[in-house]
């Protein structure tokens, strides 16, 4: 395999593997928020913003992988 092929492959692997962890994390955040809201529906507004912030932190990990993939594809 030449370097170009390896770069394409590396970008694909970086996206695929890098997104798996954050996907599990975001799923857990969403599931737990649903559980909490069903127990205490009055708190749903506050829970929603907290959930969004938590998801943003987890999502940024996936975004790092995306940036790595972009660097591999366009810059390097």
């Amino acid at each position, binding site marked *: 395999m030449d370097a170009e092929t390896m770069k394409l492959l590396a970008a694909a692997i970086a996206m695929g593997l890098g997104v798996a962890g954050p996907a599990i994390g975001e799923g857990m955040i969403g599931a737990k928020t649903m559980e909490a809201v069903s127990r205490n529906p009055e708190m749903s507004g506050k829970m929603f*913003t907290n959930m*969004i912030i938590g998801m*943003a932190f987890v*999502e940024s990990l996936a*975004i*790092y992988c*995306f940036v790595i993939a972009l660097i591999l594809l366009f*810059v390097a």
Partner: protein
Amino acid sequence: MSAEAEGGGHSVALAPEHVLEIGEFAVSNTVTATLFVSLIILVFALLVRHRAGVIPTRMQVLFESLFVFFLDKLEEGLGEARARKLVPLIVTLFLFIVVSNQFVLIPLVGSIMTPEGPFFRTPTTDYSATIALAVSVVVLSHVLALFVSPLGHIGNYLRIGGFIEILRGKRPLGELLTVFIEFFLGLLEIIGDLGKIVSLATRLFGNIFAGEAVIIIISGLLFVSQFFIPIPFIVLASFAGLIQAFVFSLLTILFISNNMVHASHR
């Protein structure tokens, strides 16, 4: 490279194109779009202000509920007086990011072409723009914390208070290791703050750029795929843009109130 997909005259490119030259400065198409977004917000603000009254119009209700939402979030951490001073900044950030994220939805504007490329491009797909926003927000949070308590805020990073307590005999010498660990944790906070800038900027840029890249690639796949197939992706991208604007302003509130509260605690 091979990742150039042609769709509607656009292609996936990280760097914005330079479309104008004013004197020595090269002006890129994201800068012109930023000015255009500012103009839109200005006109909207004047319109809403002009029609505002005791009996609220629909637009006024929308903007007032937005204002109150961020005011409530600020008051949780900072108290009312400081929250009222900071809320215009947060709402301005939110409005700017929301309008820039939905820039593709403004009709006709994206089709103005120059020899170098389109004259306008979504401002938040430029890494420089998001880095500028993130740097100004994080620096502002430190400046505000320094105003609250200069020694307290610096003491959060250079934690030499423990050494002084040991020298004065207020803490036993056996706690020297704990004090050393505290000191290095304080130094780690500095790296954490650089990480804040990187993560804020990258999150906004990555989400918006990814949305646009997906739309361009999907519409460039086949001849037929540029008509109706991108619509769900456009809906998804504009929803993500709204969420990211919320996240950016909420995290700004979090950083500012965290820094100010921690500075005044010591």
